[in-house]
């Protein structure tokens, strides 16, 4: 992301000698933490110790867990976005803030590329009565007495309205080492300031790491900015911490290419600590209507399909094994 390089230069130029305080750290910890969608076996996407792998090519003796492979690729894409945000935050955090107030820290403004200037602000919102927050769809609501809102904003140098490029909110969880909050990357806002940009839409990310679990919701909408309500793509990741997990992703895309109509596809992947897993795929709308097509696939710890059944009228997904091969937790 070019924005990061520009930020680094700008921050270095405007860095203040006032050292970091512990209060500054509290503000910085309100920025998004390191978040990763971790699917087991993700490091063995080409081959495993027995010659097969998550995304290994099919052979007469081996049918790969295709949908788990798809889930892994989706997770990699999400992780790339999260890494970008984290690197951006880390770059800013390397310099002390330029403005300090009791409930506000500001870095910048500092010039970036194409005649723009940018600033990071973190504001603390305190309420004596508390606020009930729930940042992910499956989080337990929490009563918090302070929240932090942050924004990386930009505008034409010295004029115009500040546009939020990356912004969000977080709240202390009361539980050491855990965070909860949300953030959004607004590519449309970036494009209004710099028409040369090609990215469109927005990505929204909500997270909650309380209780030893990691819950991560990602919403992407390229066509218009309503990511929470009607996204073009959404990802729901939940890892309770015992090695098992669920990764559900939703996408509106031209899956069935008979016409240009967009289908809606859901892929839910579940896995157990021993790497056995199951994928449930549903495609509807668009060229599928009025039908609803589905595929069920289970795999063993070597990511070899041990059960597969479908109502898709093609030979792409032949029936394999019995559903009992999925194991009792995944049948």
């Amino acid at each position, binding site marked *: 992301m070019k924005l990061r390089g520009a930020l680094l230069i700008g921050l270095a130029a405007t860095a203040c000698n*006032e*050292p*970091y*305080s*512990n*209060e500054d*750290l*509290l503000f*910085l*910890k309100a*920025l*998004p*933490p*390191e978040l990763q969608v971790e699917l087991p076996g993700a490091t063995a996407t080409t081959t495993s110790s027995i010659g097969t792998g998550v995304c290994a090519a099919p052979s007469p003796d081996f049918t790969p867990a295709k949908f788990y492979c798809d889930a892994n690729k989706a997770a990699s894409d999400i992780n790339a976005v999260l890494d970008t945000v*984290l690197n951006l*935050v*880390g*770059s800013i*955090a*390397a310099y002390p803030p330029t403005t300090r107030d009791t409930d506000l820290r500001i870095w910048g403004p500092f010039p970036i590329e194409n005649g723009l200037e940018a600033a990071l602000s973190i504001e603390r919102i305190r309420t004596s009565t508390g606020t009930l927050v729930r940042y992910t769809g499956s989080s337990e609501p929490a009563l918090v007495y302070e929240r932090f809102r942050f924004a990386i904003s930009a505008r034409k140098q010295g004029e115009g309205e500040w546009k939020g490029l990356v912004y969000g909110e977080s709240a*202390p*969880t*009361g*539980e*050491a*080492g855990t965070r909860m909050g949300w953030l959004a990357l607004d590519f449309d806002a970036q494009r209004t300031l710099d028409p040369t940009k090609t990215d469109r839409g927005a990505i929204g990310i909500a997270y909650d790491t309380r209780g030893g679990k990691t819950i991560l919701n990602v919403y992407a909408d390229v066509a218009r900015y309503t990511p929470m309500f009607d996204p073009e793509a959404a990802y729901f990741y939940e890892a309770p911490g015992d090695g098992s997990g669920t990764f559900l992703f939703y996408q509106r895309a031209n899956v069935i290419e008979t016409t240009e109509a967009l289908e809606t596809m859901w892929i839910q992947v579940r896995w157990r600590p021993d790497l056995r897993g199951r994928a449930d795929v549903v495609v509807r709308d668009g060229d599928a209507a009025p039908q609803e097509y589905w595929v069920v696939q289970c795999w063993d710890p070597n990511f070899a399909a041990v059960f597969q059944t479908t109502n898709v009228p093609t030979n792409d997904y032949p029936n394999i094994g019995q559903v009992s091969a999925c194991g009792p937790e995944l049948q």
Partner: protein
Amino acid sequence: MTKWVPVLFGLCVATSAEAAQPRRFALLVGNNQGSGDTVELRYAESDVQKVAGVLRDLGGFRGEDLVILLGKKAPDFTTALDQLEARIAAEAEPGVPTTLLFYYSGHAKQGQLLLGPTRVSMAFLRERLQRSAADIKIGILDACESGAITREKGGRRGPSFLFDLGDQEAAKGMILIGSSSEDEASQESDELGGSFFTHYLTSGLRGDADESGDRRITLGEVYAYTYHRTVNSTAGTRSGTQHPTFSYDLKGQGDVVMTDVTTGRSGVRFLEPMEGDYLIYDMDHEQVAAEIQKRPGAERRVALPPGSYVIKKRLPEHLRMVRFTLGPTTNYAVDDQVMEQVDFEDDYAKGAGVMARIARERPRPGLRGALYYQGFFSGAARDQLLPPLVLFGVGVDAGPVLGATLGLDLLLGGTNDQSLRLQSLDIPYDFFQVQFAAKLLWGWTFGPVRLEAGPRLSGLYALRTFPKDDQLQSLKQDFFGISPGAEGLVSWFPGDDQDFSIGLGGRLGLLSFGVDENRLLFFGELGLSLGYRL
């Protein structure tokens, strides 16, 4: 008619000298070590050598009749005393008076001589001397509280003995002399290279106590001389004035000739008109050999063994000094005119102890390695700002500046895997500190120990990093502050050359910490250092 008068020197000496040559035995005991809480003495054993030299040269003691015990314990002492007593009994001849002289230099406490970890009761010693077959028994103790040995026989502290001049019988009996009263300390002097008491005892025996001018020093003369000089010299010391004591139970002729200065073939002559206080320094043994208070009107001779000497005359503004060598028959005549003028600081005849002390006290360039533990007094400061830390460092001592040692320190320290708790956050961090300091330390020396204290100004740079925190791993939280403070250091110099030292130090500092809010933080440092002086 019996008439008690203060000692009239010389009246009885001639009589005694004309009698048969007496046989003299001596047991000389010295021990620098005491027991338990006593401080090691520097000169007790060398004082024994000094006394032995005088007795051998001028006192008529044959070499084989001088028994010297240095650093021995109580059983050795008892054995030596038994053996000597047996010899006295066996070798005594009719008509030849015998003398037993016992001299002790060392620690004493509560009526006991401390011979290292062992003890000899003064009552036992007194009783053994009393029972000795010798005609005259002389006990001289140069030790703290040594007046205890004179107590039971009506001992008293005073400037001179009283003799019964009407008694013409041969002298028999016992005289006990203590260097101090039973509740006083006996003191050593680095300037003199020995104890005050023994220094004046030997100076007197070598001739300076010859009040009568007959060149024979009697016990009465040397006691009176030693008493006055010891009292005068210790009057200004920290330990207080030291008063020698005596116990006298002598019948017969009274006084006893201790030394005959005419028997020493080599020596120093102070001619008739000369006047002043002179100090004769023995360059071979690095100690004061004698001290002379010369008054005009009579020549004074001090008998000294052959060797290299320096005579010093102390004047208000400077010293006058002359170096000379005595051959076996040389009698060096002191002449003020040939003595060179020397500044006090250039005095080249000060004694090993003084030179060592000067070496200790003189600010010298040096290097130090140090290990200090640092802790801030405020719990909040320790938890959230500057954690307890071990600092390693090096230091350079320069100086003197304003009479003090100017020291520069560089200290480094770090600690990993600390935890910063802020509200519900628990942030792992690593910590590093570097400290640069300048200080001025004024010192006081007590034997091999030197105390130093003074102000210290340090620059303190602290750096906190968060390599294990995903959000803050690129952040460096640092702080620099100037910290005024003070330092105290106790150094022990174990060697004679005073080059190496082991130090125990403590520091107090004040740091103004102005991030978030202005706070004054006190901290302390305690540690060890190893020093080497160039």
